[in-house]
């Protein structure tokens, strides 16, 4: 199975332009056989266009698409061994569930479809609903029909275009696990398009973060989260606190930076930008890595930790944790997530605090990019927020 490459998807130099608008810039991407791959990005970033070029529903302006060793760039969709689960499912309203699922088999001239269809409907737990029409099913059931209708054809690659977007949160969580289970069971390559970073991280082995028609970064969910290489990725996947700092000196494999009045330490291995003494660098740290100590207890903070002082501007209790917004001289809205283990009652808005964290949790980014890329309200995410 591991040496089988027939389910590989290889895109080389693929791009798509509509008139003067470039939806996808030349893109190279390899999705290995059997993996669960997510294309993550805000709406309009080119992720769906990329998916549709793999499906054959969109013709690339340049570049080639390979499925395994076969070039399929110019093949129409009905000749490609891939199937798609469409956004809002696109179930045939005039056919019942059984015939919807049997559609692909019948078109390929397979006569006895009953056994296969029934098995497939059982796999998605819809055996009872076979003779109903799509509109008689709930959203979650329709979604499962869409998956069954695609999977029954044993495609080399299954393409999923925001398949969970229309479901409510609880059902979405359940379907995420369900889809992951099915993928592990059938071992087919899944390419999943989503704008939901949590969904991408929960389900996929590999995530490609797309922005404005380009892949910003590709890697495992943990790698992308811990080592973002651009401010877009840092802000789009979870939340990041970014501080502009000056490179002061180096000691061993650590870079010492100056920010505001204080010093911060950044491991060189975690800095994706070139650093020259006197130059600038963006320092990032995730909100849950930070500890919050009241200014009166500042002496108890162990040595060797990165520290920043500030004043609590706001706090939100959300059950599992408390989220603080800290106003500090180096960063106006510092986000800190503290687990609700021992709550210090002095940590209320207005209190003076010291933020501190292990330097190993610091990452460094190129200072020439926008601090706000990938945050809600910045270009590209606006649309999503409006929807």
């Amino acid at each position, binding site marked *: 199975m591991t040496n089988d490459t027939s389910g590989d998807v290889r895109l080389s130099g693929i791009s798509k332009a509509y008139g003067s608008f470039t939806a996808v810039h030349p893109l190279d991407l390899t999705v290995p056989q059997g993996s669960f791959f997510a294309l993550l990005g805000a709406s309009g970033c080119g992720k769906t266009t990329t998916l549709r070029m793999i499906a*054959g*529903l969109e013709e690339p302006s340049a570049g080639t698409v390979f499925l395994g060793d076969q070039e399929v760039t110019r093949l129409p969709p*009905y000749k490609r061994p891939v199937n798609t689960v*469409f956004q809002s499912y*696109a179930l*045939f309203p*005039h056919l019942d569930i059984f015939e919807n699922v049997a559609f*692909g088999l019948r078109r*390929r001239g397979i006569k006895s479809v009953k056994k296969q269809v029934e098995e497939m409907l059982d796999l998605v737990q819809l055996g009872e609903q076979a003779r109903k029409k799509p509109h*008689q099913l709930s959203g979650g059931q329709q979604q499962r029909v869409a998956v069954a209708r695609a999977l029954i054809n044993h495609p080399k690659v299954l393409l999923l275009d925001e398949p969970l977007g229309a479901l409510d949160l609880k059902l979405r969580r359940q379907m995420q696990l369900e889809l992951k289970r099915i993928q592990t069971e059938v071992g087919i390559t899944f390419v999943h398009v989503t704008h939901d970073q949590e969904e991408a991280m929960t389900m996929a082995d590999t995530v490609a973060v797309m922005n404005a028609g380009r892949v910003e970064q590709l890697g495992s969910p943990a790698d992308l989260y811990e080592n973002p290489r651009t401010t877009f990725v840092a802000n789009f996947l979870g939340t990041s606190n970014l501080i502009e700092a000056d490179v002061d000196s180096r000691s061993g494999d650590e870079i010492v930076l100056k920010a505001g009045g204080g010093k911060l330490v950044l491991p060189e291995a975690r800095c994706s930008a070139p650093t020259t003494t006197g130059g600038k660098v963006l320092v990032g740290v995730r909100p849950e890595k930070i500890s919050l100590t009241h200014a009166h207890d500042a002496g108890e903070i162990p040595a060797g930790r990165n520290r920043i002082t500030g004043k609590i501007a706001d706090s939100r209790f959300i059950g599992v944790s408390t989220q603080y917004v800290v106003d500090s001289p180096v960063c106006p809205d510092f986000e800190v997530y503290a687990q609700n283990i021992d709550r210090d009652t002095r940590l209320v808005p207005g209190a003076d605090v010291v933020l501190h964290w292990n330097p190993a949790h610091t990452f460094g980014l190129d200072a020439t990019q926008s601090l706000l890329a990938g945050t809600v309200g910045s270009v590209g995410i606006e649309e999503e927020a409006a929807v």
Partner: protein
Amino acid sequence: MALVNWLRRNLVVIAGLLTLGYLLLPNIIVTVFSFNEPRGRFNYEWQQFSADAWKDPCGVSDLCGSLSVSLRIAFWATLGATALGTMIAFALVRYRFRARGAINSLIFLPMAMPEVVMAASLLTLFLNMGAQLGFWTILIAHVMFCLSFVVTAVKARVMSMDPRLEQAAQDLYAGPFQTFIRVTLPIAAPGIAAGALLAFALSFDDFIITNFNAGSTVTFPMFVWGSAQRGTPVQINVIGTAMFLVAVLFVLASMVIGNRRTKQKA
């Protein structure tokens, strides 16, 4: 007081029944008088019951001939207008081309124009072309004015169709032809059927345009008009009643089929 309350509660039902009566009364009169045995040439006064006309519906000369002409024209006009109209509707909804806007509004013209004007201008056209008036000129005229109705009916349906359904079909190994037969056509079918029914009804009872362009051919509406000058045979009522019954049967049949389907699903 009680009466007012009762009226208030049942106002909708009463209004519905009155409307229904208003719509059905002429049909009932036609049916009742199909069993009349008129004394003179006119079938306007009730005399006595007789089923003679039902036993011999073609008893009046030329009546069944004109009926058959009308049915044939309606059939071919429906076929032609539905085929052309469906294609035009798809083209107008699916494709962007030059003069699309102009065609979109021109299609509505036959619906808006007074029929007499259209009839007269068509006649002028046919005469100038040296065409012989008759079955074919009637057919051409009927296809022309039925077209707008078919296009309107089909267009509404095609516009509400999700283009992703066809993409899904293609994704599931259906080529262009299979996609059309298996997905596009069945989904557009209710619109096409509605357009076809409209076309048939319009063509079957058109009088003005037909009368101008018929030459020596006589259609059923023309026959009724013509005979009304000299006297009205009971057979006209028989044909009218029969057509009404056929239409009612169609509606009932479709209701029964629809009910059975929903029951099966439940």
